[in-house]
């Protein structure tokens, strides 16, 4: 997929609004323009910030598209107009944005894929809290479930990821001076994402993720000088991960976590559900919907999925694992309140007992740190 593409994607990664992602992106756009590169702004969110608006002066803007939804008018990036204009480079703010219903594509990152496919280079901005695989950790730190997420593979496909850093103290100063948001919105922001401890934690995650992206890219390149270097992995320890999908709500968390560990270990990931009939048809409506949703979610993260036939979950799962050279099985930890029902525990014990040649990972839900939701 990446091979056919000719456009290059560069992501400016931040950890909160106001760190200067858009500013830095526009600065690069200005430099490109000064070098004679044909660059346009596809989408820019000024947030009324003077410095940032000043950086956009002189750049060509492709007008936004107006979309009517339930009697209100929304403005989205006009992907078709950008494709028709076909610049060399397009600037796209707020990469994780969800388009208003009725738009051609659900997510702005999907619009960007279109631009890249057409050979247009893209500069884009995003914050770390929108990375899919960190969703549970972000919830733990902030008490907020971020809904607008970007799958990790989309970020992995970017040619470059750059960290836009500023210290939390400087950011809080900006916020207090009203540079980032208006007064009222600033006060609200200070309640959640902008607590100092939250900012410090998100910043650490952004730094680590960017380090990982850098490492990932330098390992992907032809690297004779680096073969066998510390981070290069160990021959013979190729991991394959199997995730058990059920109707339980913690399955989404389980899939995210397994995929994150898999990505870092360079392991392949499979997600399976076990059904006696080999399909989901006989299940109660709600269970069927939940399992379908989870399987879809896995596929969207580029995980291969399968419905296994079997009367006995543990046996079917371990049997499949063995036939597919799985080295690690990922299961969700039963919820605290379900602990008395023996089913979940018993299932884990059965799988651990049967899979004596594999590692079994019981993934626990992260709960918000005390105080962050208050």
């Amino acid at each position, binding site marked *: 997929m990446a091979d056919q593409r000719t456009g290059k994607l560069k992501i400016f990664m931040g950890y909160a609004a106001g760190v200067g992602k858009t500013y830095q992106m526009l600065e690069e756009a200005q430099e490109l323009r000064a070098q004679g590169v044909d660059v346009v702004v596809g989408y820019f969110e000024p947030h009324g910030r003077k410095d940032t608006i000043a950086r956009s002066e002189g750049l060509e803007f492709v007008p936004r598209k107006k979309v009517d939804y339930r009697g209100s008018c929304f403005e989205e990036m006009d992907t078709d107009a950008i494709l028709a204009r076909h610049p060399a480079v397009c600037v796209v703010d707020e990469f994780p944005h969800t388009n208003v219903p009725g738009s051609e594509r659900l997510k702005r990152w999907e619009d960007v894929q279109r631009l890249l496919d057409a050979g247009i280079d893209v500069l884009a901005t995003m914050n770390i809290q929108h990375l899919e695989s960190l969703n549970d*950790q972000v919830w*733990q730190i902030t008490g907020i479930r971020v809904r607008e997420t970007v799958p990790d593979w989309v970020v992995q496909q970017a040619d*470059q990821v*750059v*960290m836009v*850093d*500023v*210290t939390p*103290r*400087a950011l809080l100063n900006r916020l207090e001076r009203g540079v980032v948001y208006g007064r009222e919105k600033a006060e609200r922001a200070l309640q959640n994402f902008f607590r*100092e*401890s939250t900012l*410090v*934690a998100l*910043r*650490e*995650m952004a*730094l*680590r993720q*960017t*380090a*990982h992206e*850098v*490492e990932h890219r*330098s390992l992907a*390149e*032809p690297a004779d*000088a*680096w073969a066998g270097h*510390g*981070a290069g*992995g*160990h021959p013979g*320890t190729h991991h394959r991960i199997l995730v058990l999908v059920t109707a339980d709500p913690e399955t989404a968390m389980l899939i995210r*976590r397994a995929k994150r560990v898999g990505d*870092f*270990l360079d392991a392949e990931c499979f997600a399976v559900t076990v059904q006696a009939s080999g399909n989901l048809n006989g299940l109660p409506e709600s269970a069927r919907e939940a399992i379908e949703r989870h399987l879809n979610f896995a596929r969207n993260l580029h995980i291969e999925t399968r419905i296994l036939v079997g009367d006995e979950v543990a046996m079917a799962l371990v049997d499949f694992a063995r036939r597919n050279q799985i080295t*690690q099985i990922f299961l969700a*930890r039963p919820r*605290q309140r379900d*602990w008395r029902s023996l089913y979940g*525990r018993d299932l*884990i*014990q059965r799988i*651990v007992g049967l899979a*004596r*040649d*594999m*590692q*079994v*990972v*019981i*993934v*626990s*839900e992260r*709960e918000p*740190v*005390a*105080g962050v939701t*208050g």
Partner: protein
Amino acid sequence: MARELRRRTPEELLLEAQAEETSARTGRLKIFLGYASGVGKSFRMFDEARRRRERGEDVVVAAVQPVMSGEVVELLKNLAVIPLRTAGEETAIDLNAVIARHPGVCVIDGLAYDNPAGCRNPTRWQDVDEMLRAGISVITSINIQYVAEMRQLIESVTGKRVTPTVPMSFIQSADEIEIVDAPPEEPIERSPEQQMNAVKREQRLSRLRELALVLAADVVDHQLTEYLRCHGIQQHFSTNERILVCITPRANVHEMIETGRSIAEKFHGELIGAYVHQPHISAADQAALDQKLTMARSAGASIEILHGEDPVDAILHFARARGITQLFIGHSQRDGLWSRLLGNPVDKFIHRSRGMDVRIFPQ
């Protein structure tokens, strides 16, 4: 806000005393960290100096680089400068002049310099420390190459020997650290050989860039731990992977440690091995245990010996205190010593390990 407030342990009180010692410094230290020259640290730093000056702070520049970009020269025009003293080819900050002038903020471009003979301090970072103690805030810049603890790693990457260095503890003592990140310039295609060299150079720079990002993350992690401790918050944010391997005489420690090491390495996380002290252990078990602890140590794990009536409790108590995100246990424990004492420890571990993952290893 339901934060857990509680009495401080003696270790914490000790740490606080040490922290107070650093806070004898009344000046604030801010460090701009880069991974190579030319990423724009100087510009970012002097631009901050300009903004501070515009906001009314008393800013003085005490060290500049021998070669400066046009943008930096432009910024310097509006800033007061105390020139470097020169001794032959070597230079040093005019420390006495800075202390006498006593600005609110002193800007020092380049922290990693050895001072020429005859200076009060052998190195520039010690000059900076003196300024901080004198109540002068400092903003300064450094490249990852010059962090002492990074030296060996950097030398293996660049093949060059690095001489003047700054200890990591000084970097970690910064009130603020900011990373100046930019990907290396793309190699321009020339002859295949030049192209290959350019690719190698880019890979070296990428590795340095990765190291700088991880160092910044570690400093930030340190600040986060301090922040939570100072606010009496017992919980941890799992911003970093921390792996705890439970070591018993019969566990398959080799596989556990290998997996732990590889995960910790990939996530740039921490690897800890813990053993719960058992009073009546056979000589054979003791020998097996010693061998396993040695193996874990040589794989780079730090080792903790824990005490407690109930091993599961001891492990989980420690795991929570240290912000462990992944707990590794062997299911041989089912047949071993622990299960005789406890029934089924795997079940117990899973039941009580809220908020962390449990990885069960085959025998």
